[in-house]
């Protein structure tokens, strides 16, 4: 498991690296002192997990997550900002309080390893979006999102009961989505194949797609042809 340590304090980075040295399964591949360095390191080193401080000069840990296309597993490390983590509605996320207790770190790593070694979970974990919508934050596993709808320059996700708004354009999002799983139904919507419950023929070669626990989506004529081709493959 490749790990990146992000903290503005050299002593804190050293301390965490020393603690991690006791866990042979974890290999610290790099460290960063601010979010710009962290962004570069994440892109070049592709860590499985990032130990992320919250308060840093030039931007917080949350700011870093905002800027990432693909979000690795995150474990926040914080001296006192865990209230910030709790206040945000962050799911699937661990945090460690500094000074970090070795036992607590071991627990966090066990949870991580369980997630990373299981293949399906691994996919899900690596393919997650970080979304900050107002005062709420989510790590959203892409495979759990049934529908992406353009709203101006942003994208509204349909994810279970939640409707978080992603601060990116639909075109930008589409570029990073797995075409095997996601399909552009029309100009403003992308659907998740896994959530399609029923397909009906409409007027003029259009298709009506009923999503599980979701609305009915109209597939434009042009896209309908692609959809049929794809559907037979699947």
């Amino acid at each position, binding site marked *: 498991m490749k790990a990146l340590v992000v903290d*503005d*304090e050299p002593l804190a980075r050293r*301390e965490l690296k020393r603690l991690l040295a006791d866990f042979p399964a974890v290999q610290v591949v790099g460290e960063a002192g601010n979010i710009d360095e962290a962004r570069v390191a994440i892109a070049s080193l592709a860590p499985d997990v990032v130990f992320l401080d919250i308060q840093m000069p*030039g931007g917080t840990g949350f700011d870093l997550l905002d800027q990432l296309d693909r979000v690795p597993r995150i474990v926040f490390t914080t001296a006192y900002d865990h209230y910030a983590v709790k206040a945000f509605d962050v799911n699937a996320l661990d945090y460690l309080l500094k*000074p970090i207790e070795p036992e607590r770190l071991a627990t966090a790593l066990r949870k991580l390893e369980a997630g990373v070694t299981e293949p399906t979970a691994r996919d899900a974990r690596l393919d997650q979006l970080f979304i900050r919508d107002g005062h709420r934050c989510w790590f959203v596993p892409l495979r759990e999102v049934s529908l992406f709808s353009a709203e101006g320059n942003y994208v509204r996700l349909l994810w279970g009961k939640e409707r978080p708004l992603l601060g990116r354009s639909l075109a930008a999002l589409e570029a990073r989505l797995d075409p095997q799983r996601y399909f552009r139904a029309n100009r403003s919507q992308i659907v998740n194949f896994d959530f399609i419950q029923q397909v009906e023929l409409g007027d003029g070669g259009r298709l009506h797609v009923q999503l599980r626990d979701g609305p009915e989506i109209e597939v434009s004529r042009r896209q309908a042809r692609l959809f049929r081709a794809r559907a037979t493959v699947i």
Partner: protein
Amino acid sequence: MVCLSGIGLTHALKLFIRWHAWLSLPPAAMLGRVAIATLALSIASYLLTLGMSELVYGSPVAPIAQAFYQRLTVGGQLRNQFIYMVIVHGGWVALYLAFAMQRHRYRAEVRQAQLGEALQAAELRLLKSQLNPHFLFNALNGLRSLIADDPTRARDAVTQLARLLRYTLASGDDDLVSLERELEMVDDYLALESLRLADRLGVERDIEAAARGVRVPAMLLQTLVENSIKHGIAELKPGGTLKLSARVAGGQLLLRVENPRPVDSGGEPAGGVGIRNATERLRLLFGARASLHLDLSRPGLASAEVRLPA
């Protein structure tokens, strides 16, 4: 005429009482002064009336009054006139005094309550801001690392942290300490922050010898320094240099803390609560004789200035 002069004189007395804050005196002292003043007032009013009557009617006692005093000699008339003056003025002053004292007491009570509340709130905030948990836990975390890396420095850091905590816990809201003592504490604090910020924190001190003995509120300079680091230097990737200066001029101590800060630190003003608390404490301790000014007019720079009676 008599009425007018009476009103004028008692009004003057009222202003005089207010001017010398007799209402704040102990009761006996106040009553004595008021009695003498009332007597003086009555004599003045009496002489004035006599004078005016002489001028207008050609006799010291006015014809109307003479009608009342028909059976009295001139001397008796004058004596009665004087007694009358004393009674009228005394009654009037007593009436005013009763009213003013009641009002004074009421206002004092309200002020006392407000002051008490403000003090309590300030105390609570101070306690919270003094024991900055973010600083404390980060320091402990750095210390944990240092124990392995550099045991000697780790031991020094423990001593510094212990001194800092003791000082913080011991100092109350109205405690004054010498600037020298406060500076020692600030040095401990800066040493601990240096562990954390490493080479990102630079410190320049320019402390005049005469300033070291001046009494300052405990934790005041510390609050300013902590603010400078929290909202300034710690927020900058390359860090920066904190400039501390103290000098005495014109009977005043001038403390200045200067630091670089992020240029685009819009939104909340840097160190809102800390600065507000410090300002409030200065006001409670020194009234108008002290001031605190945070200058954020220059982009990328913050300068806090405190003036205290030296």
